[in-house]
C-alpha cells in the first residue's frame, strides 16, 4: 500500500502545469555541496512483531510515577486516581467524541461539563466557572487578559512566587498586546507586603498571587487583598485545588478570579500534559470570561437540558473584540476531574488534603534532621517544601533515580542561584515507609 497519495501521472501533470520538466528543476538553486549525495542511512524495515518489540524496549527505558516513589511537584502531582475515573472516561461516548458541544446530540457530555463547572464553583467558592482551559498557566494568563479588558489598565503585577512556567506564559500572552508585567518582590519565599504597596497604583489591572505558592508556602492573601482592591485592581488567586479541601477558598479571600491546574483532580501527570486549567470568577465578570460555558435550561417541552451559553463573548462571534481566542476546553480531562471530585466528595478531598499536609510535614521533619540538609523556609506550607542540599540538587536527583526515587524538582532549573535547593512534594500516596526510604537515601549522600 502506498502512503503517497500522488500517482506518477498526477506528478507529471502538476510539473507540466507549473512549467518544469522534473522535480529536481524545482530545487536546482540548491548548491550540490550541501545536497545529500547518498541514500538516507535508515535501518531496514521491520515486521509488526519486530517493531512492537523495539518500541516496547524503548518505552521500557522511561520511568514513570507508577514504578517509582514520586516526590515530584512544582505544578504536576502524583495523587491517587480511583479506578472509576478511567472506567467512566473510557466510555466511547466520552472518549472518542470531538468538540461534543452540539446540544441535539451531546446532552451527556454537556451535562458533565455543567457538573464540572458547578464542582469548581463549590471548590473555589466563586460564582461562575468555565468548561476548563488548556492548563493552569494559560488559565492564569487569561485572567490577566480579562483584568486588562475589564479595567482598561496597562499593567499586571505578578508575585515572584508564582510558578515560573506560569510567569513565562503570562509574559508571552501580555507581551503580544503590550500589557506590562511587573514582578512583586519576595522576602523569604513570600510576597513582601511593603514592597507590593509601593508597586500598586491605579494603572494596575490585577495582582496575581499563587497560594500555596511555587515553594509550597501559604501567602499572606488577607493582607494583600484590600491593598489590591483599594487601587481598583482585580485579585487573581492561583490555588492547588487539592489544598482547597482544608484551606480558605479564593471566594473567602474575596478574589475576583480563581485559576489553577486541575491535573491533581483525577488526571495522570502524563509527562506534563494534557492537563486542564480551571477558571472561575465573580458573576460580574462573566461577560469577559474566556472559554466555553455550559448552562442548564429547558427545551420547548419543558424538559431540563444543557447548552453552551454566552457565546457572544467568544471569538467566533465577537471576533477582534473578544477578550480571549479560546473557543474550546479540555473536555476529557475535565470529565476526569468531574468524576474524581464527585467520587471523593467534600470529606474525601478534605482527607486527601489532610494526608498531604501531615505526610509532607513528617517528611520535612525527617529530612531536616539529616546533616547537611536544611529546611529553607520557616513559614506554613501545604504539601511541598524546599530543602537546602549539601550538593547540587541535580546530583541528588540523579543518584536517587537509581534507587527508583524521584527525589523532587531542582530549583536550579529556574534560577541558577538556587541550584542547591530541592523542591519536594509529598502527596497522600506516599507511605511512611517510602518517606523513610527517601530520608535514608539522602543520608547516604550527606
Amino acid at each position: 500500500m502506498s502512503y503517497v497519495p500522488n500517482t506518477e501521472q498526477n506528478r507529471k501533470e502538476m510539473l507540466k502545469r507549473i512549467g518544469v520538466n522534473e522535480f529536481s528543476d524545482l530545487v536546482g538553486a540548491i548548491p550540490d555541496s550541501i545536497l545529500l549525495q547518498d541514500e538516507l542511512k535508515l535501518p531496514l524495515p521491520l515486521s509488526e512483531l519486530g517493531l512492537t518489540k523495539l518500541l516496547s524496549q524503548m518505552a521500557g527505558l522511561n520511568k514513570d510515577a507508577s514504578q517509582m516513589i514520586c516526590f515530584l511537584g512544582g505544578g504536576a502531582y502524583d495523587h491517587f486516581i480511583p479506578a472509576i475515573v478511567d472506567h467512566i472516561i473510557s466510555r466511547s461516548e466520552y472518549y472518542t467524541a470531538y468538540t461534543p458541544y452540539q446540544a441535539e446530540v451531546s446532552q451527556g457530555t454537556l451535562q458533565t461539563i455543567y457538573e464540572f463547572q458547578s464542582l469548581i464553583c463549590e471548590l473555589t467558592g466563586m460564582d461562575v466557572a468555565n468548561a476548563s482551559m488548556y492548563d493552569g498557566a494559560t488559565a492564569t494568563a487569561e485572567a490577566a487578559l480579562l483584568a486588562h479588558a475589564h479595567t482598561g489598565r496597562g499593567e499586571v503585577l505578578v508575585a515572584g512566587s508564582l510558578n515560573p512556567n506560569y510567569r513565562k506564559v503570562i509574559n508571552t500572552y501580555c507581551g503580544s498586546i503590550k500589557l506590562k508585567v511587573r514582578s512583586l518582590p519576595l522576602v523569604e519565599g513570600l510576597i513582601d507586603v511593603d514592597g507590593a504597596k509601593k508597586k500598586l497604583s491605579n494603572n494596575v489591572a490585577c495582582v496575581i498571587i499563587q497560594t500555596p505558592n511555587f515553594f509550597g508556602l501559604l501567602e499572606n492573601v488577607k493582607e494583600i487583598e484590600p491593598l489590591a482592591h483599594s487601587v481598583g485592581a482585580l485579585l487573581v488567586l492561583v490555588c492547588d485545588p487539592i489544598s482547597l479541601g482544608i484551606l480558605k477558598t479564593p471566594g473567602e479571600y474575596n478574589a475576583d478570579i480563581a485559576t489553577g491546574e486541575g491535573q491533581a483532580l483525577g488526571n495522570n501527570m502524563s509527562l506534563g500534559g494534557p492537563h486542564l486549567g480551571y477558571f472561575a470568577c465573580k458573576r460580574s465578570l462573566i461577560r469577559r470570561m474566556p472559554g466555553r460555558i455550559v448552562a442548564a435550561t429547558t427545551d420547548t417541552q419543558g424538559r431540563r437540558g444543557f447548552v453552551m451559553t454566552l457565546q457572544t463573548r467568544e471569538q467566533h462571534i465577537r471576533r477582534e473584540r473578544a477578550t480571549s481566542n479560546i473557543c474550546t476546553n479540555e473536555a476529557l480531562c475535565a470529565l476526569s476531574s468531574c468524576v474524581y471530585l464527585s467520587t471523593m466528595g467534600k470529606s474525601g478531598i478534605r482527607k486527601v488534603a489532610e494526608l498531604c499536609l501531615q505526610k509532607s510535614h513528617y517528611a520535612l521533619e525527617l529530612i531536616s534532621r539529616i546533616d547537611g540538609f536544611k529546611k529553607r523556609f520557616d513559614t506554613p506550607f501545604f504539601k511541598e517544601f524546599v530543602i537546602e542540599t549539601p550538593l547540587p540538587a541535580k546530583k541528588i536527583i540523579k543518584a536517587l533515580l537509581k534507587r527508583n526515587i524521584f527525589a523532587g524538582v531542582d530549583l536550579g532549573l529556574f534560577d541558577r542561584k538556587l541550584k542547591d535547593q530541592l523542591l519536594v512534594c509529598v502527596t497522600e500516596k506516599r507511605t511512611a515507609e517510602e518517606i523513610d526510604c527517601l530520608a535514608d537515601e539522602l543520608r547516604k549522600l550527606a
Partner: protein
Amino acid sequence: MEASVQIRDDLKYTKEHEWLKLEGDVTTVGITDYAQRELGDVVFVELPEVGTQVEQMKPFGVIEAVKAVSDLFSPVTGEITETNSKLQSQSNLINSDPYGEGWMIKVKIRDPKELDVLLSPADYRKLVGG
C-alpha cells in the same frame, strides 16, 4: 405580516443605524427599529460610564444579539451624562421599544454643527430601502 420598519420624523440618524434626539444641548441616542430587527433578540449591551468622552462616529459601546456582536457608534462628540441602566437587566427593551424605553445614552453635545452631517428621516428611509 410584520409591521413595516418604523422611522420617526422627529429624529436624526446615522449610517450605522443609530438615532439621535436633541433636547437643548443634550442628545439621546439609541439604535433604530431597522437595526434591532436585523440583530434579532438583544441579549446584552455594554455602555460607557457617565463622564466618558465620546467622539462622532467612534464606538461608544457594544451590543450583543444571540448570534452577532456589533459596535455602537456615537452620532456626536461630547460627554456622556446618563446611560439607561434598565438595559443591564432588560436588554430586550431595545427590541420592544427602540425609540423609547430602549434608549442607550445621553450625550452633552460639544459642537452643534456636527448635526449637519447626520441623516434626515428621508435620507435614512432611502438607506434602509423603506
